[in-house]
C-alpha cells in the first residue's frame, strides 16, 4: 500500500491541542492519532476529511503522497521568493 504522508503533528502543535483532544474531536482512539502522525496507519477518506475539518484546512494541506518539506525548508523556500 502506498504511504500517505501527513503533517497532523505540525497542525496540532500550532493549534496547541493534545492528541487526546484531537482524537475526541475526530471520534477516534488517541492511539490512532499517534499512529497516523508516525505514519503507521493510512486513514480512510472520512477520517482524513474529519481531521482536516478540525483544523479548518483543505485535506491536501494535511495529507500527501509526497513527503512534506520540514518547517525550516518551507521557511527558507519562502525567503527565496
Amino acid at each position, binding site marked *: 500500500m502506498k504511504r500517505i504522508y501527513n503533517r497532523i503533528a505540525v497542525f496540532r502543535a500550532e493549534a496547541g491541542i*493534545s492528541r487526546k483532544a484531537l482524537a475526541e474531536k475526530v471520534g477516534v482512539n*488517541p*492511539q490512532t492519532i499517534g499512529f497516523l502522525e508516525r505514519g503507521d496507519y493510512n486513514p480512510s477518506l472520512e477520517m482524513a476529511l474529519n481531521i482536516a475539518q478540525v483544523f479548518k484546512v483543505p485535506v491536501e494541506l494535511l495529507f500527501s503522497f509526497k513527503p512534506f518539506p520540514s518547517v525550516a525548508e518551507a521557511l527558507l523556500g519562502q525567503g527565496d521568493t
Partner: protein
Amino acid sequence: MPYQADPLSEKLDKFAEKTGMPALSRKLNSTMPVRFRAIPLVLLAAAVAGLWVQIAVSDLFGYLVVMIAWMVGSGVQAFSAAGNARGAKLDEREAALVRSGHFAGGLAALGVAVLGCFLLGMASVANQVRLGDFWVPGTGTDWFALAFFLLAVEANVATMAASAKLPPDLDDEDDE
C-alpha cells in the same frame, strides 16, 4: 502510585504494588490493547496436546484440555487487538485490526478443518479396507474436542495475527 496518607494503608498499597496485580489491572483497563505473542502459542500447543490425549489416552481428559485452551484463548483475545474487552466503540483502525485478526483466525481454522476432514476421510477408508486401525471420531466427546480445537485455533491465531499487525507502542504519549 501507592497511597500516601495513612501509614498502614500506604504499606498495604506498597505490598499490593509489589505483587504486580495493580500494574496488570491498569494495563488491562487501559485503552491500549495488549500485544500477546507467547500465550496464544502456548494455548495452541495445549490444544494440540489435548487433541492428542483425546485420541491416544483419555476420552474425557483430552476434550477438557482442548476446551480450556479455547476458553483461556478467548479470554486472552478480549484484551488483545482482536478483541474489545472494554466494550468501547472501536474506531476504523481498531475495527480493521479486529476484522483482519479474525479473518486470519478463521482462515487458519478453515484450513485445519479441510485438512482434518481429508485425513479423517482417508483414515476411515483405510479402516474399511483393513489397511490399519486409525483413529476416527466416534464418541460425542471426540466431536466436541474437534469443535473446541477449531475454536481454539481461530481464537489464538486471531490474537496472534492482530498482535503482529499492531504497530509498536508510541513512546511520546505524554500529552494524552
